[in-house]
């Protein structure tokens, strides 16, 4: 089961790489075409933007599984170690609620998003908004699984520490930092 999920996430990572490469290619081609041939690629505004939305949300789901989302860990790490498990449970539960709300909101808005077409490509806005729903659903699964582990105490090695402490920057210094 774990191997299946790992495989699925590796596939999502391939999707991320392809999306980024596609965005680079389209935007670069448009800039070059305008400069060299005075020609504008009509879809080079909308399509890269939509790929960007998908990249952002799918990436957020992958990042959530890796526990990469930025937090203010210094407060939790200052608290007694015995409280970490409870805090992790509450925090993960809040994330789960947020994700459920995102999916729920997306379902409620589905009708209005599928009847509004984008101005250039003419595809329903729902095709863009689905990204957030897919992402939130994936994150909800991740969080549920984590809550299950918190409840049963069967943590992955270092998982509780990762929740409570500032991740050491040694291995990949720039990961998740964009300042």
């Amino acid at each position, binding site marked *: 089961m774990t191997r299946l999920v790992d495989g699925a996430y590796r596939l999502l990572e391939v999707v991320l790489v392809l999306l980024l490469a596609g965005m680079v290619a389209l935007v670069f081609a448009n800039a070059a075409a*305008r400069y060299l041939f*005075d*020609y*504008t690629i*009509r879809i080079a*505004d*909308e399509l890269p933007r939509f790929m960007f939305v998908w990249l952002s949300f799918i990436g957020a789901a992958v990042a959530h599984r890796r526990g990469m989302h930025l937090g203010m860990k210094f407060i939790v790490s200052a608290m007694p170690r015995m409280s970490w498990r409870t805090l992790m449970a509450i925090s993960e539960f809040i994330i789960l609620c947020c994700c459920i709300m995102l999916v729920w909101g997306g379902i*409620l*808005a589905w009708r*209005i*998003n599928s*009847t*509004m*077409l*984008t*101005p*250039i490509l*003419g595809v329903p*806005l729902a095709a863009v908004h689905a990204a957030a729903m897919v992402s939130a659903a994936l994150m909800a699964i991740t969080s549920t699984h984590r809550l299950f582990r918190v409840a049963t105490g069967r943590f992955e090695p270092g998982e509780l520490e990762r929740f409570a402490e500032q991740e050491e920057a040694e291995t990949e210094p720039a990961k998740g930092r964009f300042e």
Partner: protein
Amino acid sequence: QYQERTIRVGSTLSPEHPTGVAINAMAACAAERTDGQMTIQGIFNAALGGDQEMSQAARAGTLDMFVTTTSPLVGLESRLGVFDLPFMFNSTEEVNAVLDGEFGQFIGDLMPEHDLVKVSFWDYGFRQLTNSRRAVASVEDFQGLRVRVIQNNIFIDAFSALGANPIPMSWGEVFPALETGAIDGQENPLLTIYDAQLYDVQDYLSLTNHVYAALMLLYSETLFNQLSTEEQAVVMECAAEAQTIQRAGMAERADAALAALEEEGMEIVRPEPAAVDAMREAMGVVYETHAETIGQDVIDRLNAELATIRGQ
């Protein structure tokens, strides 16, 4: 009959724009008529997002009211594309007669299909072309001009047909792109051109009047139905009062803006009627391409109404 409630009105324009002034006038009117029970609060400068975002919020029932030009709603109601067809109207009087008449009624009646209620038609003005390359007075002058247009296929096709290179770009990028010369020109109503201080980065203003931009004040249907009949009447009547203020403000400010733009050193180009006819002729292919999506019946209907108004 009147409940204490706050009605939020979103707009991408500033509170100083005649539209903002009109929203505030509408608020004063509503407060007076309901003894302060009904608060209308304008939220300006796109703080609630662009036109498309606000329309989705209103449709979802999370925003009460908003003001938008018709173009961003074409993805929702393709028949609104009729307003984007170039060179349909000759004057503001013509426009107002159409919008306040049977055709305006017809357009307003389409809105409930999309969970919106048309409250009022306001005025955004005729769109004009500015650029930094040359005085554009005829079709030939459009050749090779890099013109920013709104993200709308009719606009892109129209400027392609005139020989320009249309570049769909979000408004936020336009001023710096004009400033650095990444693009040569853009098209917008006079007041917008003046308010955005485009005279600092543009030398030529051509009074092409190529497209009339109608503003629609729209209410979320879900939320409108939650108002009592009296409250609905207050909204509609105050909006009608505000319409007069908005249109008068636009007329006055547009004239002032034209004078100010000339004062700021822009060369004002007034294309000859024959040159405008040539531009209109070049639009043939655009009308043909988009007649299908807009609906030939809608175009015919507008033309028939215009013929009546023009006394033909």
